[in-house]
């Protein structure tokens, strides 16, 4: 058996690879569910019902998908340019913290204030990634290490702030930051649910990212630099500028996820407000084959697993940790699937 590189990759294959990966991950996880003494089909049925079965579950799932779309976009944008931003989690928290802090005492009319807060969140995320990008360009420091480690530093920093200067005095000793002013809370998209206007912002962001990547000079330069850095440099494309531009965009998207989560869902910042949105964004981006439209679909899948797993766990007793297993497995199966889209197996 041997792998031969494909001359061309048919589009159908590109589209079916993520589906096949997801199915494979579900089949593998079924083994674990069965080991827990539960019929996997029944368990997955519960999972689907938990994510799509009622108005409430559907909106919960979409609420969860909203930040995932943005962190997924952040990873996709960076990975396309071969900037390995593993720091989505940290950028998410910096965005959230900046938004809560500024939004607590901001005095601007509602809509304008919301826009300003989102921009603040984006700036915070962008600045956080600018550091590692600079270190890589200037000294060749591996950004995988710096961005990953920054996540832990940021979490500790957030803890410090919400125990100290930004502590909410009305939270009864609960470690939580001051909340954004209620004037800047995002309106409900569906009344009496947690689903908020942020979903529209996330969808718009996906559209904008697609436009930037495919239609702008910056997008073409980014793609060229990511695919063949030497040829891009030969053509006069400045690699440092491209990498820095990508870093700012990627960090801004993850920061926006944090801002919107605060404005739409939590109000203030806690260290537990993210179940790993930044890390899951990496899986979302990979499942989407780094395509912005795919990111939306992949975010819905991951949100389904997370929200549905809770319901499944309540109904069948399978621990809800199975959600993490499924998401992690789908990343692995997707990597295998990507191998088969670029290579073909020969006897």
């Amino acid at each position: 058996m041997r792998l031969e590189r494909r001359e061309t990759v048919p589009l159908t294959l590109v589209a079916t690879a993520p589906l096949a990966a997801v199915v494979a991950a579900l089949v593998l996880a079924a083994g674990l569910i069965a080991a827990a003494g539960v019929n996997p089909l029944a368990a997955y049925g519960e999972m689907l019902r938990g994510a799509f079965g009622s108005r409430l579950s559907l909106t919960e799932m979409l609420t969860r998908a909203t930040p995932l779309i943005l962190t997924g976009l952040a990873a996709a944008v960076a990975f396309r340019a071969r900037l390995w931003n593993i720091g989505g989690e940290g950028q998410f928290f910096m965005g959230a913290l900046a938004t809560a802090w500024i939004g607590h005492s901001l005095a601007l009319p509602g809509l304008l204030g919301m826009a300003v807060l989102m921009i603040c969140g984006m700036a915070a995320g962008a600045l956080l990634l600018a550091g590692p990008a600079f270190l890589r360009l200037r000294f060749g420091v591996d950004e995988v290490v710096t961005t990953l480690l920054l996540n832990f530093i940021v979490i500790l920093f957030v803890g410090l702030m919400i125990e100290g200067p930004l502590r909410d005095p009305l939270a009864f000793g609960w470690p939580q930051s001051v909340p954004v002013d209620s004037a800047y809370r995002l309106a409900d998209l569906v009344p009496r649910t947690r689903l908020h206007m942020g979903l529209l912002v996330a969808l718009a962001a996906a559209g904008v990212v697609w436009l930037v990547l495919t239609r702008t000079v910056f997008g073409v330069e980014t793609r060229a630099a990511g695919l063949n850095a030497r040829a891009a440099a030969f053509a006069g494309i400045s690699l440092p500028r491209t990498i820095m531009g990508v870093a700012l965009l990627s960090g801004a998207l993850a920061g926006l996820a944090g801002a919107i989560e605060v404005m739409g869902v939590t109000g203030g910042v806690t260290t537990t407000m993210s179940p790993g949105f930044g890390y899951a964004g990496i899986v979302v981006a990979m499942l989407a084959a780094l395509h912005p439209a795919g990111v939306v679909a992949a975010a819905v899948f991951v949100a389904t697993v997370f929200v549905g797993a809770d319901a499944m766990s309540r109904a069948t007793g399978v621990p809800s940790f199975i959600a993490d297993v499924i998401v992690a497995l789908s990343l692995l199966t997707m990597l295998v699937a990507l191998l088969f889209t670029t290579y073909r197996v020969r006897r």
Partner: protein
Amino acid sequence: MTPVLELSHITKRFGPLVANEDVSLRLGQGEILALLGENGAGKTTLMNILFGHYEADEGEVRVFGETLPAGKPRAAIAAGVGMVHQHFTLAGNLSVLDNVMLGSERLSRIGSDRRAARKKLMAISERFGLPVDPDARVSKLSVGERQRVEILKALYRDARVLILDEPTAVLARPEAERLFETLRGMTQDGLSLIFISHKLHEVMAASDRVAVLRGGRMVAERATSETSSSELAELMVGRKVQRPVRQDHAIGAPVLQAERITIVEEGETRLEDISFTVNEGEILGIVGVSGNGQGALGALLSGLMAPTSGALRLNGADVGQLGPRGLIAAGAARVPEDRHAEGAVGEMTVWENAILERLRSAAFSRFGFVRRAEAKAHARELIQRFDVRGAGPDTRIRLLSGGNMQKLILGRCLATGPRFLLANQPTRGLDEGAIAAVHEELLAARAEGAAILLISEELEEAVQLSDRIQAIVKGRLSEPVAAGEADARRLGLMMAGVWDTQDAA
């Protein structure tokens, strides 16, 4: 002669593409057979089938009368077939000895008998006149030396039939000649050889017999003594091809001037005090054995390296520090040495590659958005004007053949009517038809008044195209000679670093 190797009725398909169609071939004991064909003719595929890398759809391979099982390189090695691939397969971080031993030891063995291996390697090296340092790290070796290691690796496994896929593609002329001498010596030692090539002169000089492959079919076999390069050229291409001839015309004013340029990079002197002038309507040829500073010269004229001292002037303005974009804006165009690594982004479309250098110009972008319609129209125009085959604007450029990709890159350069053109190894790896087309375009640009600097390792090409020639040796340039006075002996001396003005030190 007894056949040591026989391919009969081999057919190999890749999907709809028939890479080999009913090909039969015999190799006699002690014979050197040249397998000649254009790029894409199916030479590599055929040899990969013989060696067991690919499985043929039809047909079989016999070595010393025994049929080889299909698709088993180990069986081919055991039967005495050795292969030196077009793209080397050595591990750069290992020593020569390690590379030679790699894969020929049984995994079940505990420890390895390096002493015996070293002895065997040195014996082979001596016997066949292939000197190596067994402890040198492969990554530190030149391409020529690496190739020697590849050959030794095959011989170490007791190959009696050796196949070399385009062995001279990476070698300069003198190195290539030395290689063929060695190969000739090896046949006297009982080896039989097949070498693949698309270069007529070396096929004529070094083979006993020629098999010509075209479009996957075996179109002719000739004894080398009974054929001529023109007949082979026609057989290979399927029609008559002739390289265009340079017409004499008046040379204009200086366009590009290098004034005593030195480039030092990481403490190493890459170019030393070089000066030259390229005039309007003139082609200046730079010849030399590879690795003598062509890389740095190309980088300098592409805007990727700046002079450490000295000045580079284009139309009088200092352009040495401008970088690629500034240089292009100043009227320079560049054909890079390696079209896959530098000339094109393989996974991007033809239209994107066609405008990559001018992405930010008003012609192709507005308010930061790419003007796609204009860009595609431009690509379509290039495809038409420069006869790029097998592609539309939306084709990924990776799918073009080398010749067509080069025509597109050349088109991208010439579309703007540049004042100065750098043509760095513009025909490397191309077949006869494509070479003629590229020469045609270069001469047309010259006729229109472009100043062209041609860097080439092909002496014929340099002599055919250039008005004047300078040699580059260890980062220094010889005085120019007029093309008319550039005979092989004079150029040979120049390339060896012997020129009138060089002082004794």
